[in-house]
């Protein structure tokens, strides 16, 4: 595999490790954004242009901002003084190691991996659009419904409850 791919992979993994291990939450969120950018670069190198750009748009442009807003709205911007790890964290690490071992063994020893590589497919936007409108139109409509429901649900859940003395200002 080309060295760019390995370097991008390492950057992504470093971003993910920092995202999960830093003390300050905002730093974690920014490291997560780096990990997302790394994954987008990996997609672009695999020839999935549309998915790579959609990854940047959705994850970095929307989800990272959402997480940052949530961090600020729950006042977690300062570094915590107590331990950041939950009780029983060693069990989590043990299970993680097991999960990675099993996945790694499955990847390296599987016989389902094809030996010859097919040619780079043509994932033009026109093909994606055609498929989305013919073969996958039902999932598309369902995803539209799910997104609407999620949006309305999220707004309702996070809505400030009406107090008796409505001081309601705006930020």
């Amino acid at each position, binding site marked *: 595999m080309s060295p760019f791919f390995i370097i991008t992979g390492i950057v992504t993994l470093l971003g993910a490790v920092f995202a999960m291990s830093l003390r300050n939450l*905002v*730093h974690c969120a*920014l490291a997560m*954004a780096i990990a997302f950018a790394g994954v987008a670069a990996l997609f672009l190198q695999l020839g999935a*242009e*549309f998915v790579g*750009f*959609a990854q*940047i*748009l959705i994850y*970095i*442009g*929307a989800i*990272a*901002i959402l997480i*940052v*807003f949530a961090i*600020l709205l729950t006042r977690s*911007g300062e570094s915590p003084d107590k331990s950041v790890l939950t009780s029983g964290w060693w069990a989590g690490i043990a299970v993680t190691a097991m999960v990675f071992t099993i996945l790694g063994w499955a990847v390296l020893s599987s016989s389902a991996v094809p030996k010859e590589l097919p040619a780079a497919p043509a994932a*033009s*936007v*026109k093909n994606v659009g055609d498929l989305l409108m013919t073969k996958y139109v039902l999932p598309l409509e369902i995803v539209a419904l799910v997104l609407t429901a999620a949006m309305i649900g999220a707004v309702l859940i996070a809505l400030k409850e009406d107090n008796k*003395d409505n*001081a309601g*200002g*705006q*930020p």
Partner: protein
Amino acid sequence: MADKIDQIFVTALHFLVSYLPEAWRPLASSLICIVFILMVFPLIFSLTTIFERKGIGRIQNRYGPNRVGIPFTKIRLAGFGQFLPDGVKMLTKEDVVPRAADQAVHFLAPIVLLIPVLLTYAVLPFGRNMAIADYDAGLLFFLAVGGAVEISVFMAGWSSRNKYSLLGAMRAIAQMVSYEIPLILSGVTVVMIAGTLNLSQIVEHQNQYTYGIAHWFVFTPWGLVGFILFFIASLAESNRSPFDLPEAESEIIAGYFTEYSGFKFALFFLGEYLGMFAIIGLGITLFLGGWTSPVSFLTWIPSWIWFLTKMMAIVFVFIWIRATLPRLRMDQLMGFAWKFMLPLALINILVAGIWHFMSHDWQRWLVCSAIIFGAYVVLGRGLMANQKLGKRIYRYAE
């Protein structure tokens, strides 16, 4: 002859690159394009700052800067050399970083602003065959990378550990996110009619002439509304007046770049203006025909001159609007985006669909214009109806 001037940059690039061996050519070609963009657009930025100051000054019945010519000589260019001492001032000012600020994030924020903004220049077609990266999903690339600017705004606002910076940053992000939706939806109408996300092909679609007038998308009902929506949304995306509440001096000191001075402030300033140029470039590509000329007897003018002229014309309109219109308050801004522009953009998509499927007659002009006009009147009335313009009441802080 006109053709040669038109393709002068392309031929120069091929000429320079042909000296290298075959394997190095793509890399060298990209590097030369990058250097070119890094030279040309900051120069346009400097000239724009002068045009802005002189233009706003003239609109406000005063002269702008009118003394500085070329430094160390006696040549007076009526103030057009102002950007040189301004640049030196920004570079030599002391870089004050607050002690409680988050040093790493504070340092990285201007860089994280500039990188996506400069990336967006890669897909714009500046002239015939002059798009640096002609992606199949070019429009999606532009919008995706343009949306990554918000992270830098947050980084700047939060790392300064300043209440005003954080407030300005939150407002700026909310404004940018809200106005991205009408921006993208008005671009979707162009994609529907042109059938492609590739920006060069969208320009090619507009490169036809009937009765001497080009087929620019702005000359259709849905295109006109789409262009106006895109224009307003791009004003809001670049935090320009009348949407500059997050960074206005009389409101919030300087918003999210309060704690930046010296070169970092210059980088923010540069990043904002470059973002403005990029999004104007996208608007020109989508609606105003990119590098094509409006009338068929002027096609001998080189394509990149047309692109630059259109960009400068829209920059002038931006400056004009900044000097003329008052600032919008935050809730007015958000209400305008969500309650007026978003429904109008959705109706515009419907109208573009009707336009595409009706027969190519005068009827479709009538039907589409009627639907859009009706929607505009209904939405405008709906937006005005919520304002209770009665006797003034006072609300005290509890």
